[in-house]
């Protein structure tokens, strides 16, 4: 059964230097509060996995938490590039960043394989693409039945997967809905799964076939309302597009980035204070 620690206790217990971690979310339900806590606790040498690294991984890279990133699309959705990611790749700041690139389909397949106890996943992919030349975890195989040429990708099993969800009940069963991306696969592929939730309720009231992670598949549930800000939570709050647009200017230079991180994240005692600090700053 899941535990209900505070977010800082959960990160301290579950996320260690050198771990492979996945903080998933496809624009929706991005676990920002948990990511900030990792930054504040100063984790180092992490391998971070995500289909669509956005602001959160840009922040973790810029703060020096990351040794390697496994990903498919690293951008600021609807806005443009990730400047801290680019600075790490192009100039090695704050230190060199190793990358392992896949596509969305391939990374989904790798996590599904991880969740399914398979050593690899297969797809019709990468024929004619240059990506396999630079990623040793993409190989081509021949189907023993049809003779088709298929791409194989190595399964991914994170040490810890972290997701944000709408609800958990008091036993720690977790319910999420809307655009659920690859969160279920990611949660089940990991050794441990940490979930932050908007609310904890007596009854989930979910229909059969809803996306539920039973409490015994979840290590810890942390009650962090608003914990996906500035991304959105379907039926709870909308995406703060302004924050994504502003990130472009904030992250452009090392100086403005470092100062912003210090003022709004490092000095905040918790995620609530981070949000207060941002709104004080913008008024």
């Amino acid at each position, binding site marked *: 059964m899941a535990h209900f620690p505070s977010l800082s206790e959960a990160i301290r217990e579950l996320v260690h230097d050198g771990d492979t971690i996945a903080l998933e979310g496809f624009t929706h339900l991005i676990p920002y509060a948990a990511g900030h806590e990792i930054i504040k606790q100063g984790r180092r040498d992490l391998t971070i996995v995500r*289909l669509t690294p956005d602001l959160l991984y840009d922040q973790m890279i810029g703060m020096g938490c990351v040794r390697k990133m496994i990903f*498919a*699309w690293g951008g600021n959705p609807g806005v443009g590039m990730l400047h801290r990611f680019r600075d790490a790749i192009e100039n090695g700041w704050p230190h060199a960043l190793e990358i392992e690139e896949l596509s969305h389909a391939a990374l989904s397949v790798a996590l599904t394989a991880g969740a399914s106890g398979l050593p690899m996943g297969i797809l019709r992919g990468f024929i*004619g693409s*240059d990506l396999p030349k630079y990623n040793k975890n993409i190989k081509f195989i021949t189907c023993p039945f049809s003779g088709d040429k298929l791409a194989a990708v190595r399964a991914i099993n994170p040490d810890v997967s972290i997701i944000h969800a709408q609800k958990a009940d008091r036993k720690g069963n977790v319910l999420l809905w809307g655009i659920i991306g*690859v969160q279920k696969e990611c949660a089940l592929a990991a050794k441990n799964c940490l979930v932050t939730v908007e609310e904890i309720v007596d009854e989930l009231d979910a229909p059969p076939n809803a996306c539920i992670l039973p409490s015994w598949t979840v290590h810890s549930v942390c009650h962090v309302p608003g914990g996906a800000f500035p991304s959105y939570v379907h039926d709870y709050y909308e995406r703060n597009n302004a924050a994504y647009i502003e990130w472009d200017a904030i992250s452009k230079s090392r100086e403005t980035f470092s100062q912003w991180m210090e003022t709004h994240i490092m000095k905040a005692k918790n995620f609530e204070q981070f949000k207060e600090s941002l709104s004080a700053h913008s008024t």
Partner: protein
Amino acid sequence: MPVSNTVDFMTIVAARRLRNHCTCFVGIGIPSKAANLARLTHAPDIVLIYESGPIGTKPDVLPLSIGDGVLAETADTVVSTPEIFSYWLQGGRVDVGFLGAAQIDKFANLNSTVIGDYNSPKVRLPGAGGAPEIAALAKETLIIIPHEKRKLVERVDFITSAGYLDGGDAREKAGLKGGPSMVITDLGVLVPEEETKELVVQQLYPGVSRDEIKEATGWDLRFAEEVSETEPPTETEINALNQLLERTRIAREKQQNVLR
């Protein structure tokens, strides 16, 4: 009524290409704008699929990102990311893949990974996202890209998504079906030539000369035997696009007022 800029023209030309009832896997940005314009004009029953999971989505405003809530709220169903790629795209249910890219070459190979060398890039781009499989598995691919010399190049620095590879029957020999059927730019429309699969000009926008489009292209651009002038946007198309953009603007403004 004049179109406000060439991007709008390009959007309208791209929208025309999408047939009613077709299933279209949509990339974010101009593809999303054009696909929704098609839905709001001549193709009300087009099925729009976004890689974040919504199928049959009917947003009344344009999503800023590919996973916006409006896509889920207005969809026939929302599935997981593994499912959207396996059952729907790989399963052969997508007629048209609709993509943008940073670079395209004369055989319609796409680059959205790096400018320069992979290991020490001049510019690190966001990366593949869903594009490689969309380009490989949709029955046909439409590509939309602003017409600039640095974007339309002889050879892309990196093939993220396969077009016709080295041209001729190279794509087919590699085991891929489908392929790019049209490249829509802000100067005209290019199509792969039957035999060579090299992109040639099929349409020029009104007022665009052959010299101008050649000058804006990074290879020695050739012309199809018959080159037509693109029909200018109709009033219906322009109004539908303007209304869509206006609704989007108001929605985004309102959203920001609520949140800050």
